[in-house]
């Protein structure tokens, strides 16, 4: 059983990874925290992401403990600078 999510990267994170979007499959019943750990474990350049980045699931800010479902859109939100 695996969960497939679409991850989005913006601004400095997009520059770091050289991509704005990745489809990721995770085993079991993964949380946001599991996704972050799995990405960072890929090594360079993914280990440049913070250990505890701000993340939004389906357009709402989410805690690291939030469970993911297949089809979720998970955005990695660098520190924001609007205005």
């Amino acid at each position, binding site marked *: 059983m695996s969960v497939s999510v679409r991850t989005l990267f913006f601004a400095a994170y997009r520059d770091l990874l050289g991509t704005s979007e990745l489809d990721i499959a995770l085993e079991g019943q993964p949380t946001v925290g599991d996704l972050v750990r799995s990405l960072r474990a890929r090594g360079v350049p993914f280990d440049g992401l913070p250990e505890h980045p701000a993340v939004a699931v389906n357009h709402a800010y989410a805690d690291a403990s939030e469970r993911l479902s297949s089809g979720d859109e998970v*955005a990695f939100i660098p520190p*924001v600078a*609007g205005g």
Partner: protein
Amino acid sequence: MIRASVQTEPIRPEAVLGHVGSDEDGAALLFLGVVRNHADGRSVRGMHYDAYEAMAEAVLREIATEASERLGTDHVSVVHRTGDLDVGEVSVAVAVSSPHRAEAYEASRYVIEEIKKRLPVWKREHYAEGDDAWVEGTVPPGTGGAPGRSTGGRDDEPVTATRGGRP
């Protein structure tokens, strides 16, 4: 009426102000955020604004709704710009109206401060010398990082543009 939008087209402040006001309101207030020509001692020639568009408009609407609850009326209109802006161009406009001025000032201030805390928008400064950099940001409250924390100069935020001072 609550209005909130994110757009690439130039903002027309008089149109945003025109969205608020009623016969009951004795105060109408317009705040404009404008691209300035300097940052931390460097000359700036323009700014690029990037947004998570699918989320930003919803967050902007949420902020405007919260402000209207504080204001006690529903006359709040806010527009944020994206794309490439020159010095002097308006990046954000916040219009509110209320029966008395105190609530209008409070609501206007609330909207712009919350935008800076949690609107998923990023800006890249273009300097006169030709280089450019992401402006340091704020970690949105209630997310993985500590609430409302500025990230400038921190060791564990390796990919954040860092420099002293805040916009």
